[in-house]
């Protein structure tokens, strides 16, 4: 432990973090701090103390294959090794916040914040990622699909710490796109990720702000998989439009100050069609 005070702990191992959290009722786990500090300032959250994950070296490692520590930063996700193994993850990390924010914002924080518009979440869905969770009771591994229960609410048990995200390495096209209200520093009004698995001949999408939680659509994935000519990799415009229609029908997007539900529904169809046509090697549009 680098620092231990009644309301603050700076552990160096996950076990120390779990113990420090148990000893400090009402304390909040803080990774990069890029969400927690503004939340406290604008009184969207309260805390009786901090247990910081910032100085646990074991959470900041990248293991080829691909296991990403929960403390891996967005800036780290942009680096070539991650970009080669999980291109869509690197793309989504590159449009998260600003360079200064990406230096501190973590993969784990993005996941545990559990908001449907967070950049990395549609990608983790499309990649079929799993999460490693540690507590005093031991370790468990769960699919990311289903981990977000409601906006801001993750299926973490009391006292549990997200330690790693396992991302299967797929061969095939991947991409991430998002639409915002302006061209710089924007939060996703809607977003979408696509992962093509040429080994299993399967296409899988993930959508952001398409429902109360990050969303996957089995029907759209099946149609997209069928729309690919697996001998050439090509996708027809009609096939992509059929997928877009399934996406428009399948989503249940929120309505707020940024956009209407109708706009989001339309835009999600456009993003799905665009991603699938890109996957098929078509000119960008």
């Amino acid at each position: 432990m680098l620092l231990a005070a009644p309301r603050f702990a700076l552990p160096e191992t996950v076990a120390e973090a779990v113990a420090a959290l148990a000893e400090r009722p009402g304390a909040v786990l803080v990774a990069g701090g890029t969400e927690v500090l503004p939340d406290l300032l604008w009184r969207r959250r309260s805390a009786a103390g901090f247990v910081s994950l910032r100085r646990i070296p074991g959470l900041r490692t990248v293991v080829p294959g691909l296991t990403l520590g929960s403390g891996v930063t967005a800036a780290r996700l942009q680096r070539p090794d991650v970009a080669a193994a999980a291109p869509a993850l690197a793309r989504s990390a590159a449009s998260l916040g600003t360079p200064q924010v990406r230096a501190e914002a973590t993969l784990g924080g993005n996941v545990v914040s559990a908001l449907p518009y967070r950049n990395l979440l549609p990608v983790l869905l499309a990649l079929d990622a799993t999460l490693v969770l540690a507590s005093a009771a031991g370790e468990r591994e769960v699919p990311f699909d289903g981990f977000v229960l409601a906006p801001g609410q993750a299926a973490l048990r009391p006292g549990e710490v997200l330690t790693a995200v396992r991302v299967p390495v797929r061969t095939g096209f991947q991409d991430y796109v998002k639409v915002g209200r302006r061209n710089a520093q924007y939060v996703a009004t809607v977003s979408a990720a696509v992962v093509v698995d040429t080994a299993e001949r399967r296409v899988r999408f993930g959508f952001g702000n398409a429902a109360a939680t990050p969303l996957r659509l089995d029907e759209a994935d099946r149609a997209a998989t069928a729309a690919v000519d697996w001998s050439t990799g090509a996708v027809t415009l009609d096939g992509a439009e059929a997928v877009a229609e399934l996406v428009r029908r399948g989503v249940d997007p929120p309505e707020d100050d940024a956009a209407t539900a109708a706009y989001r529904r339309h835009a999600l169809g456009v993003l799905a069609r665009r991603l699938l046509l890109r996957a098929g090697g078509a000119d960008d549009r």
Partner: protein
Amino acid sequence: MTDDEWVSYELTVDGKPHQVTARWDESLLTVLRERLGVRGPKLGCAHGRCGACTVTLALDGESALTCSCLLPAAAAAGADVSTVASLAAGDGALSDVQDAFLEAGAVQCGYCTAGMVQSATGLLERNPDPTRDDVVAALYGNLCRCTGYGRIVEAVLATAARRRNR
């Protein structure tokens, strides 16, 4: 305020070691400005958009430009923090980036300048020969409400050109 609110730790700021005693939830920016009197980093948006609070944080063998308003200061215990004050020479002479900002008229109200100069300095260390797009990308996290971006970008490009011809 009860006794259990406090945390004590060391921070080195612009080369000078400090023993800090602060509340557990204070940001690095608050500690720098309110506890240590280091006034280069500014409070702007307080949520990671404007970059007025940008500092260079060297911690556990890694170094990066970061928003000091977003980091709990105690999490950076033992860190080496550099602000705009570390860029000038000890005798008060400005750095070449700072000189270029003045020459180009890249300073209007000045609120964003400390952050801008640090992001620009960091870019030129990583990439001595940046394109205009590289400069714009490096300054993406620094907002200027006077919209002096044209002259700011010119100042960074001018510094790079001058260093190449040196």
